């Protein structure tokens, strides 16, 4: 029945190690980058754990020990981890840890074991969202087509984050650079195709101009 197997460009794909293959919600949009005039890339599946802790407090300290970086206290920001991941502020006692170097079933228990005794919590949400990278000269225009947050680099430079709406999808928007040309968008997996379709549509003029 599954003979028409979709392309698996952005996903990890079938593993050679005998592990179960993974699929990515945007496997079916292999031309997303082209269709968005080069602006949007679907990132590979990434380990993500939602962390809850009182800050300051022992659970936050415990999280910092595991992650190697303090949980950012400032609303609407993210910080890099030594492992090359990110810790994104989601709420006054809530963060999202993104870690491309480990697996969910490694990271969640480690964080949970460290945090739970101190009143915190950790939940694997790796499959809850997918990550889109938005870059280049069109990035801000595409965002402006559906996002009410001011993304001007003077107010939304590298290190800023916003949970907001892009079109009709909830997103977490991360600024990765100070020049307004590099962002990441986290969107719930069930909305990923909608958002991809919307981005492709929003890029219509840019696509035509490039053609």
């Amino acid at each position, binding site marked *: *029945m*599954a003979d*028409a197997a*979709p392309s698996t460009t952005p996903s*990890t794909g079938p*593993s050679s*190690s*005998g*592990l*179960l*293959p*993974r*699929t990515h*919600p945007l496997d*079916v949009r292999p031309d997303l980058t082209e269709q968005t005039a080069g602006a949007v890339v679907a990132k590979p*599946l990434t380990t993500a754990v*939602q962390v*809850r802790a009182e800050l300051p407090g022992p659970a936050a300290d415990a999280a910092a020990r595991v992650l190697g970086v303090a949980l950012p206290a400032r609303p609407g920001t993210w910080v890099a981890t030594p492992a090359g991941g990110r810790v994104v502020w989601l709420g006054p*006692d809530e963060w999202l840890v993104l870690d491309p170097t480990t697996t*969910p*079933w490694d990271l969640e228990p480690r964080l*949970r074991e460290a945090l*739970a005794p101190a*009143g*915190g*919590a950790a*939940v*694997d*949400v*790796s*499959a*809850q*969202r997918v990550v889109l990278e938005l870059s280049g000269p069109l990035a801000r*225009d595409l965002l*402006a*087509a*559906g*996002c*009410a947050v*001011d993304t*001007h680099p003077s107010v939304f430079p590298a290190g800023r984050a916003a949970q907001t709406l892009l*079109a*009709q*999808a909830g997103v977490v928007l991360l600024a990765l650079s100070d020049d307004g040309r590099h962002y990441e968008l986290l969107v*719930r*997996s*069930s*909305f990923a*195709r*909608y*958002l991809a*379709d*919307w981005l492709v*549509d*929003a890029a*219509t*003029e840019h*696509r*035509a101009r490039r053609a």
Partner: protein
Amino acid sequence: MSAPFRTASGGRVERSVPVSFTFGGTSYEGLRGDTLASALLAHGVHQVTTSIKLGRPRGVGAAWAEDPSSLVQVEEPFPDPMQLATTTEVFDGLVAHGVPGQGRLADIGDSARYDSRHLHVDLLVVGAGPAGVQAALTAARSGARVALVDEQSEPGGSLLGTTDLVDGRPALEWVGDAAAELAAAPEVVHLQRTTVFGVYDDGFALAVERRTDHLGGAAPREVSRQRVWRIRARRTVVATGAHERPVVFTDNDRPGTMLAGSARTFLHRYGVLAGTRAVVLTTNDSAYRAAVELADAGVEVAAVVDTRPQVPAHWAAECAGRGIEVRSGSAVVGTRGTDRVTHARVAARDGGAVDDVACDLLLVSGGWNPAVHLYSQARGKLAFDTSLGAFLPTGRLDDLLVAGAAAGAQELATCLRQGGAASATALVELGLDVVPVPVPSTPAAPPVTAPDLVWTVPDVDGDTSRQFVDLQRDATVADVQRALGAGLRSPEHVKRYTTIGTAHDQGKTSGVVTSGIIAELLGGGPDDVGTTTFRPPYTPVAFATLAGRDRGQLFDPVRTTALHDWHVRAGAVWEDVGQWKRPRYYPLAGEDVETAVLRECAAARTGVGILDGSTLGKIDVQGPDAGELLDRLYTNLMSSLAVGKVRYGVMCGADGMVIDDGTVLRVAEDRFLVMTTTGGAAKVLDWMEEWHQTEWPELGVHLASVTEQWSAFPVVGPRSRDVIQAVFGPSGVDAANEAFGFMTWQDTVLDGAPVRLARISFSGELAWEVHVSSWHAVAVWERLVEAGRPYGITPYGTETMHVLRAEKGYPIIGQDTDGTVTPQDLGMAWVVSKKKPDFVGKRSFARADNLREDRKQLVGLLPVDRTTVLPEGSQVVELAESGELPPPPVPMLGHVTSSYRSAHLERPFALALVKGGRARAGQLVHVPVKGRLVAVEVTGPVLVDPEGARRDG
């Protein structure tokens, strides 16, 4: 066709770019840069249409959006109703005609694109006239983020219609340099052809940019036709100028009658003479400029009729020098002509003979109304200024300032100064360092003589029935008089009685005049009357423009599960459940819904079926008080659930009515997984957060949505154990009853992927729910399908799921309940804890109405004929003694909530909410179905395997 009224040179039109268009069936040539009005006037065509009620000819009355009369229907390139000739730019292939008052919609959809952009600025400047340009320049040089938005095709505003000098050179050169500077400034967005149509709270303004309308058929399809700009400005400067005000007199609607300033615009901007012989009626100095400039351009100006007894000396001299007669203390009391003015009827204001002065153009100026619409929309208060004879802003608002003619400024120098000053004030407030822009020099203006305030010129015979106040509505002074005579005093009542101000122009020229006329008739000033409310939009905006990209499949997000493509390939027929697409059933070739569902049901009851249940809401609940929170929100006890076990639960609102249900897995001592209905997922998480955050913040508990994290597949049927064992046995799972009991769960790992298996049954069959990270959903599903092949594993959809659960009497919240149903009504008293002192909703169960014996209760219904599938929604009734339906209103016992044909029972059955239903078990009631009374037997809701032997198998 030559254009006899086009001047030899001058104007902003591109004389080397002719365009051909058709109006009213006649082909014309215009120039790029023309509006439909200017192009028609260039050909001497004044009449555009006829009026809505009286069929009187109507022409071009103004040069822009304030024109009340030049309504047209665009037919090509796409039907566009109710446009103004004065704002429609001409292009090759434009086909239009006048309309008396009703536009025509295309009979097909519009395939043009519409989109929107958000824009954040420090300063929004509305209007690119002198005040607006100076404001924008000031802000740009200060490094502010600026938007300069103007509705015309090029900047300049009123300067487009004058010969003014700025800094000693033509004003438009100054504007051009300013525009170039703004274009080079990195933080400036300069939008022309863009109308700010509404100003809202917190610096929010909406504008519509007409991006391709002027290109006609040459517009690129991929470019949005119109774009809505959602502008969030920290400060706004409204520099929208002023609209000239007409004077009402008899037959003032005859084509050839035009606002004086508009004739200047047609001359200077479009190079068009609006007539050959003009009479000018004025109450103020401004119209003298029109008289003088038109005369200089070759129009014979027969007379300037000034209502004031003393005419301004400067202008009297200017007129004298050109041989223009000035009649002081006089007015135009009427016009003659048929479809065009042939004479202005002039008389002294204190009576005397009427002199019919031949003319083909009658210019009128009754003064100027500042365009205060946006200020007023922002809830600024207006006051009548008697010296100007106009309603003016009473000041600034917190984040909105008014500058230039919109604030009542009369002279160019004042406009420039106010624009710069307003901008600087705003920037200082924002903490920006202002780089002042010198106010450019302007020639000294002649001394101003006070304007006269004239709303109407009395008809010589006292007949007010042809004195038009609102040309679009054919509403006259007589109508206002009737309204007042009927007892009406409020301008809002007069507006409704006469319909003045309700037409397409929303009273841009008639509104203030109406207030003046009412005041005059009742005694008192216009301030006592006030104006009617200015409401957005300033000018009409197309529905599709506002719809933007939220159309078609983007109208509302489509949510998909990880298995979506598998379902597509399997030929699923979809059901919209909230925003989700769920497979409703999977028809084989030739199957309809009924046969497919019977097949799917049979598979689940006799073999094995598999459902994508991933849309079910899932909430991770962690923390030492997790059980306590659940105890307070579920009707039953959750804290007593052992790790490794599963419990069904129901949540109620404070009113005691069921709001959601689902299973709860205790994952660890301090961790639960709460499953909700598909539609209830967001609602339940919000509900739990609300209680936790606002009522019980002291509880140590953390909630997280994991709906997409976990895909969930019920594997259902007597052979489900075989499938589970086959797939997960190698991982160490023993699916035998003794090792894996009903309502328990176990974790395992399948080729590196963690999997949770839970023995949960929403079908009454032996069943497992397979929970797996959505990363592995497809792989695990395919493994299950592969392993199930020997047992004929059958994917089934929501329809079969509904049948299976209904046969077991399991309600679906939202289908078998409607917000008025308690757990007890559902026969679920067992799920309501008697041990807990309280939980949300408990107190409501004790209310009088909840204790009624005749509450509607969930029961089963079996049609006695064993063939009728009762339509869901059918009502249940008791028959009269006669065995017939009593006459309306017929008392109703309840209604059918779910109804299906059962493969297992080999008969149709239904669930219903029926008054006192449980006590009616075994009784016959009736259900009217398409005019027939179907006898049904009331039963308990559980029709299949009431003992649960299958489920527990």
